[in-house]
């Protein structure tokens, strides 16, 4: 009987495509918008993810997210180092600097200052120059996207210079780095150099990066740092989610994307539900004939559900497939954020499941109440 259900469904191509279109429409919109949302959220924490090595970030107690820098005093570094369970701790500068380019143009840049001795937090995707080059005077490494932004169309070349805070910066490396929420170029340099490039302030230490001793739970070390220094210590993962939480709660981003996702869901449900219902109404005499011939209500129910599932599977596959192709195309061709984790696929699957259920319920009611005697009415 499932086979009959399938043949009935695909036999009416216009209706079938209409129902599938409704599900595809919803799946594309939900998957695509959710992926862009995830992409944006991913951008907000890219600088945390790119700093590999330290497991603990220590910061002022009032810091809410990674770009919310509230400088610490230099003494705080030593206080953190003194906490039992801390294997090592280093300085980390993060700020915005204004760069004056060779052509006299100005550009905002994200300035990251790495510990002079260890260069902890150095970029991992260097494809031109070397991290060791940072030890040279005035040396900076810039991210690939930043290079193309300030010198568009020009070939990669080390030794280029620009100025920050009236000080010369010399390019010694180019690296791949994750895009940031602001899309500013990212400049890496030594901590001692960064404080010279940055606008003068009384306190300049943005974060302390620390590592827990082997065998000690980093969460426990964070608790100890909190307790003994009064600072806020978070594991890398905690800081990441704290930043995402901030954007979720304090910005309109989730609401805007949520509205689009909801619209996709509603419109998809309306199209799929209405077309599926019309398909059922059109076939009501056939269902009546099947019931007259001895098909039980349960059999009819399974047939309609099977049709719904078939439409759902095809619509879901096409929908997330199209969304993925869209993401793949725009990711290469534009700066649109797009990140499709498995959770997006799961959420889309649940949404499609609900659409199919709603669409099927309307039709199920219709076929279950149909009187088999309908077939005797000319």
């Amino acid at each position: 009987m499932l086979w009959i259900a399938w043949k009935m469904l695909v036999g009416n191509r216009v209706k079938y495509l209409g129902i599938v279109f409704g599900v595809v429409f919803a799946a594309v919109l939900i998957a695509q918008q959710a992926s862009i949302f995830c992409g944006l959220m991913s951008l907000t924490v890219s600088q945390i993810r790119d700093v590999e090595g330290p497991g603990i970030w220590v910061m002022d107690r009032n810091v809410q997210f990674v770009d919310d820098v509230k400088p610490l005093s230099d003494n705080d570094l030593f206080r953190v180092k003194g906490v039992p369970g801390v294997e090592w701790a280093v300085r980390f500068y993060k700020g915005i600097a204004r760069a004056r380019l060779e052509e006299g143009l100005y550009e905002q840049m994200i300035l990251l200052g790495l510990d002079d001795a260890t260069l902890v937090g150095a970029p991992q995707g260097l494809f031109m120059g070397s991290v060791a080059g940072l030890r040279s005077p005035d040396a900076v490494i810039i991210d690939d996207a930043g290079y193309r932004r300030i010198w568009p169309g020009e070939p990669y070349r080390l030794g280029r210079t620009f100025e920050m805070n009236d000080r010369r910066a010399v390019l010694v490396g180019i690296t791949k780095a994750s895009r940031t929420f602001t899309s500013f170029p990212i400049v890496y340099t030594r901590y001692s150099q960064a404080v010279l490039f940055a606008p003068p302030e009384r306190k300049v230490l943005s974060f302390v990066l620390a590592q827990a001793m082997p065998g000690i739970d980093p969460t426990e070390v964070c608790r100890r740092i909190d307790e003994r220094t009064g600072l806020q210590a978070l594991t890398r993962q905690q800081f990441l989610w704290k930043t995402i939480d901030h954007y979720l709660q304090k910005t309109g981003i989730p609401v805007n994307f949520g509205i689009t996702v909801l619209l996709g869901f509603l419109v998809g449900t309306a199209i799929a539900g209405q077309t599926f219902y019309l398909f059922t109404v059109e076939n009501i005499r056939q269902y009546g004939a099947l019931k007259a011939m001895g098909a039980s209500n349960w059999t009819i129910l399974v047939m309609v559900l099977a049709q719904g599932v078939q439409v759902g599977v095809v619509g879901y596959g096409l929908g997330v497939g199209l969304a993925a192709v869209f993401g793949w195309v725009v990711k290469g061709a534009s700066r649109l954020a797009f990140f499709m984790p498995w959770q997006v696929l799961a959420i889309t699957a649940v949404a499609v499941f609900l659409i199919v259920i709603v669409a099927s319920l309307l039709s199920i009611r219709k076929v279950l109440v149909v009187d088999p005697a309908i077939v005797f009415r000319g």
Partner: protein
Amino acid sequence: MSSRQPAAEPVAADLAVHVRGVTKEFGRGSAATWALRGVDLDVPSGELLMLVGPSGCGKTTLVSIIAGTLGPTAGEVVVLGEDLVAMSNGRKVRFRRENVGFVFQSYNLLPALTAAENAAVPLLISGWKRRRAVEAAADVLAELGMGDRLAHLPSELSGGQQQRVAIARAIVHEPRLLVCDEPTSALDAENGRITMELISNIAVQPDRAVIVVTHDSRVYSFADRIANMEDGRIELVEVGPRA
């Protein structure tokens, strides 16, 4: 030539259909309409009975009740020895599946299925494997002269051919009661005659009763008996030319 229907009597063993005092009311209160006003009817196995009468006289309602797709308001309905009035809905569904074949006025073929697949539907409903069911249906279609149209969709068949597929579908599972609702009304005279020949020659069997609802007087000659209905009652049961 004609005889009155006998009064209520014990159900004989060879009676496929035994109906006594059946009424059917549609609607309630002032909107109530009586479609059947006390019908008595017996149909023995091996007989082709035609239910005839003007539109709205209750033919379709009566045949729906006999086929188990509609319940009576009152009365006794015993089909193939089973009391349909006392039967649960689930049991009625099984009863129809196993014992009743249908030929509908508008064929009611599934447009997406081929002739052989359409004819196989009752077997599929009974749980047969698709391949085996379609093969069995193809044999019946061949018997009905449709052996060269097995893979055709209903839209590729003439009205007469579609009705033959419907007949094949009605008898493929060898039911003991065949109910045909206006089987010739959508056909021209020649196809109507062929359809009735197939029903009377192939569908009528010693252990199967056939009830044909019609007001096509051209096909009366195929009947063993003709029950004339008028205003919700059987007024007259005549012995047909075939008897």
